[in-house]
């Protein structure tokens, strides 16, 4: 449904996209995961015909977005990250304006607006001026605007950033319903949990290109191994942890043992399956070490990200925080 083919885009010396390719199957809920500055917004802006790529091809719903942008716009709903709303108008007036820009006929439009107001739980405030809305209300209104013309592709740029739980819940539910009804939904996020909970498939972006792609379970399975957190005492000291590490390091089926200083020198292990854990317990009792606690988990998307980039998503976020230039970013978004 959506094909980005070898897209490159630079803002002056800053390379935002570096040969990005993405294929979103029809009817899927697809997640675009990556830290701030990975190129998510640029990719979505190109997809939505707001921005022309320096190189590469864009196809949406079988149409060449670079050749037939207007036809693509008719089939595409876009919920942007920067919530552009006219504070003086009421939500309903905004929707009527939006409907006219998509050339919807008046009776149909009125009905459609009523349906969406109900669907997104906006009855209580839709006739108030947008200037009085909370972030969650604005986002819901934005989602309604994006859905007015019944697009076959819905694109959302970080739709739940900074939202209250209720609004987030409403948006998640609507996105799932849309996918179930056949709409192709593409959303970007830098929340791992969001993508894990929502997406059928995802692509992880870093440095303007896709570094991993698949369904969440595929990606995690490909990574393999269970995660084990082990404590021999509630708070071990460094030497004890080092000793435990030494004991476990050589065990068959143990891939990796790391001492987590931040959490009372607990040990983080990557192991191959259940059987290894019994082996671990035996090994520990032979070495006369007790087990205070042992917990097991499957790899998370964060582990997937870590594996692909060598850093956690959190670290990547922190890295770019200081480097962002809001003024330059605003200029990029301005026409």
């Amino acid at each position, binding site marked *: 449904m959506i094909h980005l083919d070898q897209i490159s885009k630079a803002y002056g010396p800053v390379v935002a996209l570096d040969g990005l390719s993405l294929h979103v199957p029809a009817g899927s809920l697809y997640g675009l995961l990556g830290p701030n500055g990975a190129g998510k917004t640029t990719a979505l802006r190109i997809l939505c*015909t707001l921005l022309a790529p320096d190189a590469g091809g864009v196809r949406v719903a079988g149409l060449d977005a670079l050749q037939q942008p207007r036809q693509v716009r008719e089939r595409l709903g876009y919920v942007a990250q920067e919530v552009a709303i006219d504070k003086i108008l009421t939500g309903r007036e905004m929707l009527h304006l939006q409907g006219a*820009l998509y050339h919807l006929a008046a009776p149909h439009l009125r009905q459609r607006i009523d349906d969406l107001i109900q669907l997104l739980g906006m009855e209580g405030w839709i006739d108030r001026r947008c200037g009085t809305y909370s972030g969650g209300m604005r986002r819901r209104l934005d989602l309604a605007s994006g859905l007015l013309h019944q697009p076959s592709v819905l694109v959302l740029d970080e739709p739940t950033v900074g939202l209250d739980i209720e609004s987030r819940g409403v948006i998640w539910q609507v996105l799932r*319903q849309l996918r179930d009804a056949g709409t192709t939904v593409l959303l970007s996020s830098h929340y791992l949990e969001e993508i894990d909970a929502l997406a059928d498939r995802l692509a992880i972006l870093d440095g303007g290109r896709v570094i991993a792609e698949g369904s969440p379970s595929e990606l995690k399975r490909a990574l393999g191994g269970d995660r084990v957190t082990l404590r021999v005492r509630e708070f071990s000291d460094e030497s004890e942890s080092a000793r435990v590490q030494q004991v476990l390091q050589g065990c068959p089926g143990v891939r990796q043992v790391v001492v987590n200083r931040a959490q009372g020198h607990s040990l983080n292990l990557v192991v191959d399956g259940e059987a290894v854990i019994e082996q671990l317990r035996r090994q520990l009792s032979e070495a006369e070490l007790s087990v205070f606690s042992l917990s097991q988990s499957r790899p998370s998307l964060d582990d997937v990200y870590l594996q692909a980039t060598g850093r956690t998503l959190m670290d990547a976020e922190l890295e770019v925080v200081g480097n962002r230039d809001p003024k330059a970013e605003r200029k990029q978004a301005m026409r």
Partner: protein
Amino acid sequence: MTSASPLTLNAALPDQGPAQRSAFADLSQETLALTRRLFLQLARRPSTLVAGVLQPLIWLVLFGALFAKAPEGLLPDGMSYGRFLGAGVIVFTAFSAALNAGLPVMFDREFGFLNRLLVAPLRSRSSIVLASVLYITSLSLVQSLAIMVTASLLGYGWPGGAGLLLVLVTLLLLVFAVTALSLGLAFTLPGHIELIAVIFVANLPLLFASTALAPISFMPTWLGWLAALNPLTFAIEPIRAAYAGSFSLQAVVLEAPYGDLTGLTCLGILAALALGLFLLIRPVLDRKLS
């Protein structure tokens, strides 16, 4: 929360056939919706309208009073200063309003509202510009009419019949030209601070260097030249003539240092200016809106 079934919200739906509707129907629908938005804003924040009427009104009353005892012979045909000033203030009103045409567009650019318009399948993006022109034209005409009514209540006269038509045509041409300029600036300047600075700097000097407040014969030569080249003058003089009554387009309305100009010539210059400015800003609009 939701009782609507997924089917009512969904999308895998019949593509609205774009071909079934005429381009004109689409264009007028989007243009009217955008114009309506601007008027809703105005209705809920009428300060622009109020200030736009108040400011020239103050000019009219204060300046009229200030020069009420202007020496005989300063003005042609023993015209009273109030009557002389009327035409100038009417034109200045329309001019100021049109000069602000770019501000809403600039704010839309800055707040990203323009992007919302640009992802919509507009039939033609000129509807964005068209809506601004429609809005600012009606706004400035309403303000000018308010000033004209006030001026007539102050006893400064009223152009009858054909004269009124001439006033409207003249104002329209000026408003088109200045709106084009302002929209061009709104798409080229980096932000509203810069745009407001340009408006601020352009406004008063253009008023003083025109024949709004005094005739050319009263000015030093250099200022006379400036006034005779100022577009405001080409709008003021035909309107002043219309106010004087018994108006003919062939009659000389402006005795400029470089020669006499008839009303028709003035209108021609304004029309050429409006056309020229629209042609000038077209590449800018094409680039920004494509």
